[in-house]
Structures are given as structure tokens and as C-alpha cells.
């Protein structure tokens, strides 16, 4: 990880829906450094989720560029590999497959990695331990609380050790206590693993935990926050 390097570079991205009638993104521009924790806030419908989905390569922009770790997503040959290995996604809702156990859910992205059944299982167990759910590995999501589900989703996002974590309102449906727990977990992961964390939230208090707060309005980034400098960020281990 190198804080002076740009991890995510979004340039002038436009995304429309319904044959151009809905402008979800209207020239959004954003840079995120490696290892940085950025919170994106803004009113409902301003394009936060859309932006996150585009960075996660779930969809393609109409125009503009998204460059991740020096590679333009538009020119990326293997988007599946990017999704499984380069970024980890956590959504607000409906994250997990309801019929699979927590462990099986965490293993899902690993099918695309060259891992044996045993390796997958052991790694899922380690990740569940990391999110404090070691004893719930066999439990299906329907028997987990909302906060526990989000922690399983975070463990799954980390399945193939991606350098970037994208979380879309991961605490949106949680009470403040479990929301705080999930937030603490994400921050710890960001610090301990040196992961770049982009978190979308409505919640000002959650956003304040970030190193930088980006504000969006009508499909644009209207305030990129304080540019990441050495002084602004929290001290990482070993520095």
C-alpha cells in the first residue's frame, strides 16, 4: 500500500437510465488514495449507489473513465476476476444467499480462485473469526441478526483479499449499536489490512469516522472533502 498512489480515479463519469431520461451520474469525478477511508454522503437519489456500482464494475458508465490501480475498467479484459479479486462489495440489503450457511456464503467468491474445498472452508472460517462470527459458520443468514449478516457480508467481501472494499450503506438497516459494531469492523479491516475503503452513508455520525467525507448532489461530487495529506489521515501501523 502506498498512500501517495491513487487507488480509484473516477473522471467525469456520466450514467443515465431509461434512455437518457434519468441522469444518475452527471459528470462525477473522484479520487481515492490507496488505503484511504472515504465516506460518500448526499441526498437520496444523488447517485451514490450508482457510483459505487460502477467502481465495482457491476455496470459500465455511458462516458467518462474509471481507473482502478492504474487500469481503466473500460479496457479490462476480465471483469469477473476484477469483481472477485480486486474489489469487495457490501450492500445495504439482500447481501447473502438465504439458503446457504454463513460459511458457504463467505466461500462464494472463492469458487473463482484456485482453492480446494478444504482451503475454501478454512479460509472462510478465518474470515468469520476476523468478523467475530467464528461460532456461527454453519448458521444460515435467516437465523442471524441484521448486524451479524452484515459482518458475514464483510467477511465475504474479503474472501479473495481484495485491496478495495466498497460498502453501500452497510449500516443503513441496523440499530445504532450494531451499526457502530459494523463500522468499527470496517475501520479495523481498513487499518489492519491496508484496504482502501469507500463507504456510502446517509448517517453523518458514521461518515465522521472516515478520513475524508465526499459530498454528492445531483449526480456530481460537489465536495471532495479535504484532500488526503499525511496530516489528515490516521496513523497506520508501522508508520
Amino acid at each position, binding site marked *: 500500500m502506498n498512500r501517495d498512489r491513487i487507488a480509484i480515479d473516477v473522471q467525469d463519469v456520466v450514467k443515465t437510465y431509461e434512455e437518457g431520461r434519468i441522469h444518475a451520474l452527471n459528470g462525477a469525478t473522484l479520487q481515492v488514495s490507496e488505503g484511504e477511508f472515504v465516506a460518500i454522503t448526499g441526498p437520496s437519489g444523488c447517485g451514490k449507489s450508482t457510483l459505487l*456500482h460502477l467502481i*465495482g464494475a*457491476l*455496470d459500465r458508465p455511458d462516458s467518462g473513465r474509471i481507473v482502478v490501480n492504474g487500469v481503466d475498467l473500460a479496457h479490462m479484459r476480465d471483469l*469477473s*476476476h*476484477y*469483481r*472477485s*479479486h480486486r474489489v469487495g*462489495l457490501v*450492500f445495504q440489503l*439482500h*447481501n*447473502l*444467499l438465504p*439458503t*446457504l*450457511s454463513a*460459511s*458457504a456464503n463467505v*466461500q*462464494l*467468491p472463492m*469458487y*473463482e480462485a484456485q482453492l480446494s*474445498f478444504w482451503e*475454501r*472452508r478454512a479460509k472462510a472460517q478465518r474470515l468469520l473469526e476476523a468478523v467475530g462470527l467464528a461460532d456461527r459458520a454453519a448458521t444460515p443468514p435467516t437465523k442471524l441478526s441484521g448486524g451479524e449478516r452484515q459482518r458475514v457480508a464483510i467477511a*465475504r467481501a474479503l*474472501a*479473495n483479499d481484495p485491496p478495495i472494499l466498497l460498502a453501500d450503506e452497510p449500516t443503513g438497516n441496523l440499530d445504532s449499536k450494531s451499526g457502530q459494531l459494523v463500522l468499527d469492523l470496517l475501520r479495523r479491516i481498513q487499518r489492519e489490512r491496508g484496504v482502501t475503503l469507500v463507504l456510502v452513508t446517509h448517517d453523518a455520525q458514521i461518515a465522521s469516522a472516515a478520513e475524508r467525507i465526499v459530498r454528492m448532489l445531483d449526480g456530481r461530487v460537489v465536495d471532495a472533502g479535504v484532500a488526503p495529506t499525511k496530516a489528515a489521515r490516521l496513523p497506520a501501523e508501522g508508520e
Partner: protein
Amino acid sequence: MPFFMLIVRNLLRQRIRSLLTALGISIGITTVVALGVVTHSVKATAAEILRAGGADFAIGQSGSSDLTFSTLTSEQLGEIEAYPGVEHAIGVLMVISPLGSNPYFVQLGIEPADLAHFEVPLLEGRALAAGATDEILLGREASRQLGKGVGDTVELRDRRFTVVGIYRTGNVWEDGGGMLPLATVQEYERKRGLMTLIYVRAKPGIDLAQLTARIEQDHPELATLRTLSDYSDVDQGMQLMDALNLAISFLAVFIGGIGVMNTMVMSVFERTREIGILRAVGWRQRRVLQMVLGESILLCVIGALIGSTLAVIFTRVILIFPVVRSFLALEYTPDVFIRGLAVGVAVALLGALYPAIRAVRLSPIQAIRYE
């Protein structure tokens, strides 16, 4: 969890639906396998007839629609006997008519003198006497069913015959039938001087392929019969059965395919969001395809297993009827079951084609947004 278990899990989510779909598929496969077993068994029995009495091959009239309609003359028999490679040739008139509870009592008319060369394993009694007109040899099954032994009389075609011997060849048609003097059968069939088949034993060391080719070349009106496929060539009944079998296989694939498609379409639609999540966490299109096809194939393989089991049970059950037992000796060969499985896989692929395309085409974002 192994990928295969993931597929099993997906099917187990809708147990009843999966089971009903598998049962639906199994019905078609039962028909295909049961019909296949019966066809094969009948053919195998028929093919044995071509080598009856230890013959190297048989000769029939080419182009006859049914083997029993084959008509050969004594002149033709003489011509065959004249071939230098032929050790001996035996003319036989084959007739099928009801006797007792057996609607397909097979009567072989044979010259008593020829029985010396026609290998019939006698269990009891003696062979037909030279010049006898009212003697009959009974197959063991026929003897059992009729309750007649050596010394008893049998009434057949308004004539009385004395049972002089009991034989057992192992072929259901022969063992369920009898052998009578050729002249007698020719008389009551009004086929004086005519026969159905000529059984040929070649001299030792003779190349059978060459001999049969010679005969067919010299006599285009004759067909030499050595194997099952030779038999099917002269017997349109067999060809009809083959055609019926093929038609039912296609029907089974088609009907089963629609059932599977219905199930898989529902299952894929219900899981739109899940498939989107899988794509979002990096599953390749190929893997989604593997999952959907895997589910469909597993469903159909289960259907094929159920269907094959039902077919075995069904074919066993029809043997309860003595009538069936008198002309059907079941033979279960692997290729009939392989065909059942192949039909199952064809059903799976046909049925999964459209849903699989739908699943693979789902973009992760459509799926995530899908409510």
C-alpha cells in the same frame, strides 16, 4: 462446500417441485427403457432362431415383410445344397398359430431325416421317426404349459399328434413351440413343397462371409441371415419397432424438455437476485451456466434412474402373464439403460437451454436492483 453440493442444495430448496419434475421425466424414460428392453429381447430371441440347430446361418426370401412370410422352394434348397462349401442345408417351414394358452405356438416343420444334422437337445423320448406324419416334439415350456409329456397326444390344427420327445434349446420361441414332420406342416398350411428358412452348416474351414456373399450374388431373391441386423433387414416388424422406439425417444425428450424448462425457468426467475449477487461477487458466466445446467442434468439423471428402475419393475411385472412369458425372454443390456440416460441428458440440455441463457445474460446490476 463443493460446487456439486451447491447444485444439490439448489434442487433441495424446492423438494416437491424437483421431485415432481424428476418423476415427469422418468415417465418418458420408463417408456424408452421398457420398450428398448422388450425390442432388444425379441430381437435377440429372433436372432437365436437364425442359428437354430447349430446352423452357421439361415437363408430367407429377401424383401419379405415378415420372416414368417418368407417362402422358399425345394428347388432353391437343392441349389443351396449343391454349393461346394455347404456341408448340409435343412429346409424348415415355420408356422405360428395358437395352442392352448399360447397364442404364439411356434411350429417348426422339419424333415425327420434332417434331425440327425439339426442339433436338438432332447431331454426325454426320441426324435421324429422317418416317415411319421402324426408325431411331435415339444419344447420343455410348451410341455409344461400344456401338461403333456412323452406318450400324450396333442391336438393341433384339427389333427392329433403323439408327443414322442421333449427338447430344450434355451430359446423361448423354440422351447414354447414344437417340431413336426415337414410334410405334415406343409399339408395343413397348404404350402406343399415350400419352406420358410434354409439352415446351412458350412464345411469346416469355409469362410462364411465369402459363402454368404456368393449365395446372395448368385441368388438376389435370397437373403442370408447371420446376425440381428440381418434379421431386421428382412423383418419389417423389427424395423417398425425400432422406428417406434426412436419416435417415443424423441417424444420423451420433447415432453420431458418442456417440463424441465418450466421448472428451470421458474427456478432461475426466482433466483434473479441471487444470480446477480453471484455475478457481483465475481462468478463468471461460465460458472452460472455450469450451475443451471448442473441442476438440470442432476434433475434428469435422477429422473433417468427412477425411470430405469420403473422400467425394470414394469418389464418384470408383464412376465407374470404366461402368454408374455411364452414369447418374451427378457435380456437387460447396458446399452438400453445408456440410451435411457442419454435421453435424460438430452431432456436436461433441451430444457435448460433457454433458462440458462436467461441466467447467463443477467447483468449483476439488473439483478441487484431487482425487487
